[in-house]
Each structure stands twice: as structure tokens, then as C-alpha cells.
């Protein structure tokens, strides 16, 4: 069973109730009760196969849970399709970069921005003449320092920038809660901090709540308000970065004695 959070910072933005997903014999997520407060940056850590990504996939409804329910602002959203969740402000990025590779970086952004503005269903208006969409897209690219690559195909830009664009697309949707699945995976060590700084800046500036799954412990302890450690599909420990750092059990299982 998961551990209930003691720290009640703000309103509960997300709650899960007995969330469960087994893949055959593997208990990927085993009755997880999770609470996320508005405005916090929560990190989920754990060894490979501990169920972190599966948990994100369940919350974002990429896969269906075997049992359990998900509440977003108190509403049961367990069966909502991802597009509807995105419209409500629950968005996610992907561990393996997930972009529109054949479209330019700008068009990637414009696809997300038109979606946010609810204009994708317009069949006869000119996209190029929609100044608001183009301006918003360019502003977002500037915020994430991608504007110099606006005309390049998303499939052709360097990996670090692809990773940032993947996260930037989430911000185009003006999210309330953002789920980030290893935002710095595959990024070179020297680039990790600058990439994470760009993301943290955007999160704090936008007052967005973030749930981050991350492998890199330096990053986790540096940017999180609260940390949850997972092991074999269950929540092992939960608390402030300092508490997690000092937790013997977590050190043994997760951080390998960091």
C-alpha cells in the first residue's frame, strides 16, 4: 500500500486511488495511492522496472489500469482520452522523444498551439495568417531557446533540442499539471543541467505543477519539492529531498548508496 502524504501544501490537483497494472506476472504498478498538491514539483525515483513510467502512462491514460481511479481536480478522469485530458490541462512529455518529425520545429509548436486555442477544426482559414498562433509559437520557441531552429525539421535537430521541444510542446498547451518522463534522458552530461534549468524555469514561471520521473539523482535532489521512491510497483518512501536522501531503505534500493 502506498503512503499517504502528510504535507498538504495546496489544493490536491491529482489523486490516484488503488491504481493497479500488472503485465502478466509483473506487478508494474501495485495499488498506488498518490497525491499531488497544486504548485509543487514532485519527483518519482526508483530503479529500472520499479513502475515509474507505467505510473505516468496510467495517469496520462496512455494505458488503461487494471483497477483503481484517477482524480484530476477532484474529477474522476480515469477513462478520459488523452486529448481531453490535454484540453483540461493534464499533459505529458515522453522519455523517448515523441515529435512530429516530418514537420518543422515551428509547425510542431503551431500544432500544439492551435490545439490549445481550439482552432484545429477550422478547415478553411489560413494558418499562416493566424498571427496569434504564429506569435505564441515563436514566443514559446524563444522561451525554450529553440527559435533559431524554427524552420528546421524536428527530425533533423540535435537530440538535446528535441528533448526540450518535446517538453516545450507540453507548455504550449498551457498546462496545470505536467508529467515529465525522464526529461534529460539521452542528453549528454554537460547538457543535462542547462536543459533541466530551461524546464524548471518554465515550470516555476508558469506556476505549473510537475511530476517528474528521473534517473539522475543530482537533478532530482536539486529541483524537487518532494520525492517519492518506488520499488516493485509500490511506493517505498515519500518526503522532502533531505528525508529521502537520508532514508536507509531508499539508499539501499534506489540510489545504490549515493
Amino acid at each position, binding site marked *: 500500500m502506498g503512503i499517504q502524504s502528510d504535507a498538504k501544501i495546496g489544493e490536491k490537483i491529482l489523486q490516484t486511488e488503488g491504481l493497479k497494472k500488472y503485465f502478466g506476472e509483473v506487478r508494474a504498478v501495485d495499488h498506488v495511492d498518490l497525491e499531488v498538491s497544486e504548485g509543487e514539483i514532485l519527483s518519482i525515483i526508483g530503479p529500472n522496472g520499479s513502475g515509474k513510467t507505467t505510473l505516468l502512462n496510467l495517469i496520462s491514460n496512455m494505458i488503461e489500469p487494471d483497477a483503481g481511479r484517477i482524480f484530476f481536480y477532484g474529477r474522476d478522469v480515469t477513462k478520459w482520452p488523452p*486529448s481531453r485530458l490535454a484540453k483540461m490541462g493534464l499533459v505529458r512529455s515522453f522519455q523517448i522523444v515523441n515529435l512530429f518529425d516530418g514537420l518543422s520545429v515551428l509547425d510542431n509548436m503551431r*500544432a*500544439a498551439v492551435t490545439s490549445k486555442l481550439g482552432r484545429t477544426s477550422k478547415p478553411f482559414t489560413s494558418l499562416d495568417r493566424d498571427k496569434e498562433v504564429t506569435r505564441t509559437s515563436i514566443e514559446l520557441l524563444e522561451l525554450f531557446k529553440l527559435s533559431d531552429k524554427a524552420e528546421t525539421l524536428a527530425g533533423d535537430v540535435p537530440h538535446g533540442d528535441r528533448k526540450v521541444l518535446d517538453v516545450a510542446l507540453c507548455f504550449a498547451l498551457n498546462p496545470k499539471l505536467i508529467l515529465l518522463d525522464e526529461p534529460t534522458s539521452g542528453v549528454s552530461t554537460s547538457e543535462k543541467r542547462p536543459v533541466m534549468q530551461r524546464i524548471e524555469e518554465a515550470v516555476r514561471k508558469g506556476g505549473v505543477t510537475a511530476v517528474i520521473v528521473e534517473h539522475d539523482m543530482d537533478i532530482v535532489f536539486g529541483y524537487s519539492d518532494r520525492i517519492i521512491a518506488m520499488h516493485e510497483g509500490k511506493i517505498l518512501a515519500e518526503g522532502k529531498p533531505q528525508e529521502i536522501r537520508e532514508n536507509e531503505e531508499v539508499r539501499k534500493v534506489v540510489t545504490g548508496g549515493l
Partner: protein
Amino acid sequence: MKLYHVVALVAGLVLASLLPLILPKYYTFIFAVTMCFAIYALGYSIILGRTGLLSFGHALYLGVAAYTVAFLMRPEMGAFRIFSMELLLIIAIGTSALVGLGVGAICIRYTRIFFGLINLGFVMLWHSLLLKLYYVTGGTDGLPIYIPSLFGVTFSHEIFRTFIFYYYVLGIFAITTYIMWRIYNSPLGLALKAIRENSVRAEFVGIPIGRYRLAAYVISAIYAGIGGALWAPLNGHVSPDVSTWLTSGDVVLMNILGGMYTFTGPIVGAFIFYNLKVQIMHFTTYWSFILGISAIIFVLLFPGGVMGWVSKVMPKLVKKSYRQKA
């Protein structure tokens, strides 16, 4: 639209308007038929080139519209017999859209080869219905199509087929092309491209992919319907041959030959494919053999289609908007 677009457009329209005055009557007829197929191919490109779904069954809508026209013209219709081409077109658009909505709602639950095969299943089902319900459809003999009136005016058989209907089709072709151009450059066009590139991510940026795939499907069905409704009076007769896996495959070839990621590709592909077919049929009864070889050569020479190649070798003429997959 850039200046060179406008120039090319005006030049194209002037040239197309002059053709019946220069060319033998036979070619006026052939080009009118070609434009019907170009509308069919252009509509198909929104589902293949934009949304990334490969259908092997779009001749269904060609047939639905052509038979709609045939039914409405039958003497058995009595007082409800319709000869007005405008009215026939509107009703044919309605039936193909309706069938497209029903069939599409089932098909778009699947993607890739499954989508293609379910569409193929529907066109085969329709084809066998046309064959077996012969007391309604005329079976293999099909049904006659009479000469419709254009804006209330009835023309003689020869004037209609070799002259006046050419302009009618040209007008509809211009309008449908313009509408498709608007769709391609609209937010919806971008959303469809996003679905083609990565449907999972599209869903996660808030695009309801199912609904949009269905919208694209219905648009393609309507275009096929317009093509079929215009083709029927030109052909003067409609038989189950219009809705087969072969005529469904033709439109795929037209898109691939012309360049499915470019706007003009499907149109150019329709012109090349149909005229090649007609020319080869003059020479030999083994036309399908020669046509097959020509198609292979075309694909090997122009892997991105003819217009895909043009947009590569003429980057100055065809500007950056085409450099990425349009």
C-alpha cells in the same frame, strides 16, 4: 499564395479553357474524364498524403455517386426523375458523404494495413451487391446514364460530351482544387499532418485523432463522389466495374506517381496515369502489363513522385513551404 502560384494558376486555366478549341474532340472528352479522376485523386490525398491512412477501397464512393446519378435518371423514378446536373451532384455528394460517414466510422478504428483491408472489404461487398441485385442495378450490364441538363439547359449528345461538359467539369475541378488548397493550408490541415507524423503525440497535444481521421475520410469520400457523379454522364453508362479493387488501386497509384506529399502531385498523377492508360490501350490488348511496367519505372525514377521530384530540382520555383513534406 505567392505570385508564381497565381501566374501558374491563371496560365493553367487559360490553357485548359483553350484546349477544346485546339484539340480533336476525342481529347476534349479524355481530358474531361481525366479531371474527374483528378478530383478523385485529390480527395484521396487528404486521407493518404495528409492523414497517413492507406485505403484500398475508395472506388466505393466513385460507384455510390455514379449509381446515385443512374438511379435518379431511371424512367422508373417517374415524376421524381432528375436531369439537372447541379441537383444530381448535390444528391451524389450527400450519398457519398453519408456512406463515407458510416463506413468511415468503422474503418478509422484501425490504421495501417488493417485500415486498407477493411476498406477493400467494403468495396468488394458493394461490388458484389451491384452484381447480384441485378433487378435494381442491372447486374453486369449496369445502367444507362442520360444526358443531364446544365443550369437548366439541355445540349445535344455530341456537344455535351465533347465540348460543353468539359467546361462544366473544369469549373468544378477548379472549385474543388481551391477548396482543397484552403483545407491543406488551414489549422485542420496541420492537425492532419500531425496525425500522419505521430498519431500518439497528436492525441497528447489535444487533437482528437479519431474524429479528425473521420473528417478527412468523409472529405475524401465526397471528392470521390464528385468525381464519380461527373464521370457517369461522360461515360454514358455505369457498371459494377467502376467500384472494384482495380479502380480503388488506381487512385493509390495516381497519388504515388504524382507525389502524395505535394499538393499538385495527385492531380499530376491522375493526368499521367489515365492518359498513359488510354494511350497504351490503343496499341495493345496487354495494356495492363505495359502500364504496370511504366508505373514501376516511374516509381523508381521518381521515388517521391513526379511533383516531389520537381519540388526538389526546382527549389527556387517551388519555395520552402514545399521543401518539407507539404
